[in-house]
């Protein structure tokens, strides 16, 4: 009897563990479909079929809204898997967007704005990585510092003014690619795919998990820990730079003050919602994708059903805490929590 209960509990736990946060995402989607329908028709019976949430247009909007956070969260996944954190991605995004737009304004350079923006992000990521890998400073402190310093740098770049380029040559990136899906969505998915390939099929990927799982053991088994750390922070900078380019295509402008404010928090939330362990060594990029989608779905759905801005914040925060609480339960039965 007791054995039976225990076995059922174990089986339940195992299946929850395999699926991760996907059921939560689907549940939230179904709930919004129902609620949006109810808000529109006022009828419980017709609510589900008349909901607007699951319409193709809305889903493609959600995907586009999720794209930049997904890209940032992919970089954040690399960093958190090594047991680190990158608080500077929002600021790097702003600075990179400034560089991208300013470069695109130089006559004849146009498209060079893309590599310029991304390259600048990589450079800032390399500074973070160097301070973590060589100066051995705590990642939280290093990136907390660069969060502030790079924000200042972003403002400095445009003399504290917004830079516009209504003729931005790569503005097409925010347009549709096919079937109404935006290029931004395609880019985000490509980033997830490449991240997955790196984490799953390369020696580097295994080493990222190894450094996060046990840095001492990694060093003793001959892994160049500094290479791994440099990679993850440069990758995070690269993806923040890419995020900067992506956001410039939506706004046709960049602003050092507001752009990317608090983006790092959404990226971290996505990674944690995706089941990646905050101490490193455990997690998947697909989990991060689901985490980023949960955040996007919440923002979109709450607006759709007419919840006020104030309550959106409160509900989003509570969902993040609740989801992570679920995650603790999920990990309870496994080797390490």
């Amino acid at each position, binding site marked *: 009897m007791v054995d039976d209960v225990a076995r059922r509990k174990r089986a339940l736990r195992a299946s929850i563990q395999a699926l991760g946060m996907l059921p939560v995402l689907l549940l939230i989607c179904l709930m919004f479909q129902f609620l949006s329908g109810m808000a529109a028709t006022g009828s419980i019976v017709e609510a589900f079929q008349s909901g607007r949430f699951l319409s193709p247009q809305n889903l493609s909007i959600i995907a586009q809204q999720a794209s930049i956070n997904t890209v940032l969260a992919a970089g954040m996944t690399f960093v958190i898997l090594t047991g680190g954190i990158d608080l500077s991605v929002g600021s790097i995004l702003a600075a990179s967007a400034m560089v991208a737009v300013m470069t695109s304004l130089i006559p004849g350079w146009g498209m060079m704005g893309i590599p310029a923006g991304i390259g600048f992000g990589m450079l800032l990521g390399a500074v973070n990585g160097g301070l973590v890998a060589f100066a051995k400073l705590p990642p939280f402190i290093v990136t907390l510092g660069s969060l502030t310093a790079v924000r200042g740098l972003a403002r400095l770049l445009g003399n504290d003014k917004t830079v516009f380029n209504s003729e931005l040559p790569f503005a097409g990136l925010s347009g549709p690619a096919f079937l109404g899906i935006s290029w931004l969505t395609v880019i985000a998915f490509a980033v997830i795919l490449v991240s997955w390939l790196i984490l799953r*099929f*390369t*020696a*580097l*990927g*295994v*080493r990222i*998990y*190894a450094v996060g*799982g*046990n840095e*001492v*053991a*990694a*060093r*003793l*088994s*001959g*892994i*160049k820990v500094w290479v791994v750390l440099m990679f993850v922070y440069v990758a995070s900078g690269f993806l923040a730079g890419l995020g900067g380019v992506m956001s410039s295509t939506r706004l046709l402008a960049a602003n050092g003050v507001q752009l990317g404010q608090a983006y790092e928090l959404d990226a971290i939330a996505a990674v944690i919602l995706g089941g990646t362990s905050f101490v490193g*060594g*455990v997690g998947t990029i697909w989990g991060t994708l689901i985490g980023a989608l949960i955040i996007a779905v919440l923002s979109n759905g709450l607006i759709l059903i007419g919840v006020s801005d104030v309550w959106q914040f409160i509900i989003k925060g509570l969902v993040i805490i609740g989801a992570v609480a679920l995650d603790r339960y999920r990990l309870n039965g496994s*080797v*390490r929590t």
Partner: protein
Amino acid sequence: MHVVPDTMSKATTPPLLQMRGITKEFGPISALSGVDLDVYPGEVHALMGENGAGKSTLMKVLSGAHARTAGTIWVDGREIDIRGPDHAKALGISIIYQELSLAPNLSVAENMLLGREITRFGLLDRAAMHRNCAGILNDLGVDFDATDKVSTLSLAQRQQVEIARALLADCRILVMDEPTTSLSSKECENLFALIHRLRDQGLAIIYISHRMDEIYALSDRVTVLRDGRYIGCIERENLSEQRLVQMMVGRDASTFYQKQHSPAPFSEVLLSVQNVGDGARVFGASFDLRAGEVLGIAGIVGAGRTELARLIYGADPKTAGQVTLDGQGLRIGNPLDAIHAGIVYLTEDRKGEGLFLDMSVSANVNMATMDRDGRGLGLLDGAKAKARTLDAIESMRIAVSGPETKVGSLSGGNQQKVLLARLLQTNPKVLILDEPTRGVDIGAKSEIYHLIEKLAAQGSGIVVISSELPELVGISDRILVMREGRIAGEVGGTSDMPIDAETIIALATGSVAKNETFARG
């Protein structure tokens, strides 16, 4: 063995502390079985035994850190059930561990009164606290003030703060666990004088040490433990080094694992270590390792064995010395260099420094050799990795369901095999194995011994560091004994010292007269 009954001379005064039949079991393993200990007021009672003999466990039972499985404890003639550390403290039992437990940023007085600060209207009354402590510090004759910050004090001074703290708490039974480990000889003398003074004031002092000279200088009686058992208690008058060593070693090493082969004595020198040191924990260590040889390194915990191994492997930077492999000088700056040269190291801390517990057996086995097996561009060759893992699982008889099983779910023995399998993937010439059978069941132990023997027969050079003397005696062709960061001597091989536990313990504890010369190879 003849054992002196321990109720002889002090029969007139009742013992302050009596422990009878103390047994402590951790699951199926019994760390203590039926240990007795009597301590009288006004005596220094030394507790001796090899690493793992049960001294620390016994003291943890006394301090309430471990609950005993069986046995009785009397304090002052009253039967007591020690419920926890606070209760032990209230009974007047204080323990000073090797790692001192002071808060460095607080003052001496604040540390001494930690947890029972003197307050007035809810605020700290520093003046009263300092007055309270100054008296005891004065009695101890220390050269610092109650107001000094602990972080400004030397290690010896901090120890005095701990003693003062114990006295302030009305301590009557003071346990000191290897208190001289990091003290200079002058500081040791001061400490001994202090211990004698405290003894004369009627304190009962339990003194744990490996150093024979300290036992002679301090103790009134010595209780010896071995393998968690009470072996005997010797009065000061009957103290003899030979006898103590015999009691500590005891068991018949010949019943233990004995290796089958003896190496060709003149095979080529594989690894040569010259004057290696780090200026702090290892000094001028030199030895040669021949192909096919199993070289043991013995010594008490803290003698610098692991530290020496880590210097050779490049895990810590060395400040002096040269390592030569196959006649070629090596420049080893990190573990990767060592692995490339053909030297691997098995850490003593399997979980903390060896394995990736959240990762699969396959990832753990192939962690050091992913590049070699890669398919270019850093891509993993999953098929090859899997084949190697299956190979290792079979040849080392690792009990797992498959290569993708998480290492964290395996038993200690199987985890150790996984770690060994990783080392072997690199085809090493020299293996340095640090406590290779720690926390490993009997079956896996003997498999590891046979593996060591097989590797040696294939021409590898193997260094084994172990705190289990019978094991070391059983598997080594030659044993180096380290003491206080130096190689204190050598037994077996071309030395004229026999490979036996008595000789090794004598060297490790420094009880052999210093002027005796060792024939070094």
